[in-house]
C-alpha cells in the first residue's frame, strides 16, 4: 500500500530531519509510529502529504510515486490526514467542516452522507454548532470524520489522543478499529499514548533520529514486556 524508501526531508534546504527513512504499510493494516518528540514523526507525515519537501528517496502509494506531489494531489489519491492539533475550521459549523472534507474531491457528491453523522453520534447532535465551540475530544472526532468522508484508502492520524479525555480516546480507538476491519481502511497512527496504540495497532514502529530503530508486530507483548517503550519513548 504505502512504501517509503530512503526518504530524506527537512524544513529548510539541507536540513535532514528524516535521513534515509524507510517503512511500509500493508493494505488494511493499522500501524503505529512511535517515538519521542522531535524524532521526525510529524515531519514524516507532512512529507508524505506534500507539506514538507522531500529531497531524496521515494514515497509510493499503491505503486505510484507520490513524493513531490502537492498536498491536494496526495489527498485526491486517497490519503486522509488528521493533523496534530486537529485543525478544524473553528468558524464553520460541524456540517460545514464535514463538507470541507468533500469539496476537494470532485468525484464525490458535495453533500455530507448520513453515515458521517453516525460514526460519532455527538456530531449529529451538534451538526449546526460551530466547530470551535466544541471540546477538544469532539473536535478530534470531527477532524477524523472530516477525513473519512473523503473516502481515503490510507488514513494518517497525528497524535489523535493529545489533550483528550480518556473515554473519548477509547471511543476513537474502537470506532477506527471497526472501520478498518469492516472497510479495509489502512491506518498509520503517530502516537505517544500507549493505551490507544495497544488498543488499535497491529504493528508498532519505534522511531529515533529520523529512522526506524525497532519494529514489532507482537503488539500485545509490549504490555508484558515494555522494554522498547521505555527505551524509545521515556524521556
Amino acid at each position: 500500500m504505502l512504501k517509503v524508501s530512503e526518504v530524506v526531508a527537512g524544513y529548510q534546504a539541507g536540513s535532514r530531519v528524516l535521513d534515509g527513512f524507510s517503512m511500509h504499510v500493508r493494505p488494511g493494516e493499522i500501524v503505529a509510529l512511535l517515538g519521542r518528540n522531535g524524532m521526525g514523526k510529524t515531519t514524516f507525515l507532512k512529507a508524505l502529504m506534500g507539506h514538507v519537501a522531500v529531497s531524496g528517496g521515494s514515497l509510493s502509494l499503491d505503486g505510484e510515486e507520490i513524493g513531490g506531489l502537492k498536498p491536494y494531489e496526495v489527498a485526491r489519491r486517497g490519503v486522509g490526514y488528521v493533523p496534530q492539533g486537529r485543525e478544524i475550521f473553528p468558524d464553520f459549523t460541524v456540517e460545514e467542516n464535514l463538507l470541507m472534507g468533500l469539496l476537494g474531491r470532485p468525484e464525490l457528491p458535495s453533500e455530507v452522507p448520513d453515515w458521517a453523522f453516525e460514526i460519532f453520534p455527538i456530531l449529529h447532535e451538534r451538526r449546526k454548532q460551530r466547530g470551535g465551540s466544541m471540546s477538544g475530544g469532539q473536535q478530534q472526532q470531527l477532524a477524523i470524520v472530516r477525513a473519512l468522508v473523503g473516502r481515503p484508502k490510507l488514513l494518517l492520524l497525528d497524535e489523535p489522543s493529545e489533550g483528550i479525555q480518556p473515554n473519548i480516546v477509547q471511543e476513537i480507538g474502537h470506532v477506527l478499529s471497526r472501520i478498518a476491519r469492516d472497510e479495509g481502511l489502512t491506518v498509520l497512527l503517530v502516537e505517544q499514548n500507549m493505551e490507544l496504540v495497544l488498543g488499535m495497532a497491529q504493528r508498532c514502529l519505534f522511531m529515533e533520529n529520523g529512522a526506524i530503530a525497532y519494529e514489532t508486530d507482537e503488539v500485545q507483548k509490549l504490555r508484558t514486556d515494555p522494554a522498547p517503550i521505555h527505551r524509545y519513548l521515556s524521556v
Partner: protein
Amino acid sequence: MNFAIGLGLDTLSFSLSLLLVSLGLVIIFGLMNVINMAHGEFFLLGAYSVVAVQQLQLPYWAALIVAPIALALVGLVLEQLIIRHVYHRFIDTILATWGISIVLKQLIIIGFGPTSQSIVNPLPEPVHILGVVYPSFRLFIMGAALAVSIATFWVFYRSNLGLAIRGVIANRAMAASLGLNTRRMDRWTFAFGAALAGFAGAVMAPIMSVDPQMGGGFLIPAFLSIMVGGVSHLFGVVLGVGLIGSTSTVISSLDTQLAAQIAVFLLAIVIIRLWPEGLITRKR
C-alpha cells in the same frame, strides 16, 4: 417632505454605490488580507472600459460585460506575477499594490490622455418617484448594486464554492490536505474581486468625471466602510457603507462636502478606536 425624500434617495444611492465599490475590496482586503492600493485603479480600468466601448460605437451596456471580464484577466495576471508572492506579508501588500496602481494609472494616461472623458448617459430621461423627479440612471445603479451584492454574498456565504474559498483563506494547509487546489482558488478569488471592481467602475462611469484620478474618490470611503463594519460577517459591510454613506450624504447636503469628510473620518476614528475589529464581529 420632498427634500427628505430626495435626501433619502441620495443617501440610498450613495450607500449602494459605495457597497458596489466595496464588494471587490471585501473579498481582496477583507477575505484575502491583501491591502489592495490598486483597487481604485481596477475601478478606473472598469470606467475606462466604458470609454473604450463608446469609442468602438458599441452600446454602453456592453461595457457591463466587457469590464468585469477584462478586470478578471488583469486580476489573474497580477495575482500570478505579483500578489501570490506577498500573501501573508500584510505590509508588503501595500507597497506591491501601490506600485501596481501607479503603473495602471500611467497606462491609462498613455492610452487615453490625462484629461477627463465624457460618457453619454445611457438613461437620460428622469423618472418620477415618490413625488420627486429622480435621474433614472441612478435608480439603475441602485438596482445593479443590490443585485450584485446579493449575488456575491450568496456565492461567498451560502454556496459550496464560497465555503471552500473561506476554508482556504482560514487554513490554507488544512484545506490543501483535504484535496482543495488552493493556488487555483486564490487566483480566481482575486480575479473575482478585481472583476467586481471593474464592474463597479463601468456602472458608475456615466455619473462620474472619468479621468485618471477618479479611482481614489471611492477607495477611501470603501476602505473605511469595511473597517467600520468589520469583515467577518456579511452584514458588517452593509452596516459600514450604510453608516459612512448616510453620514456623508446627509452632512454634505446640510453643510459642505468638507464638513461631510471631517464627519466621516471622525466617525470612523471613533468606531475603530472602540471596536478595532469593526462593529460586527463573530463571537470567539
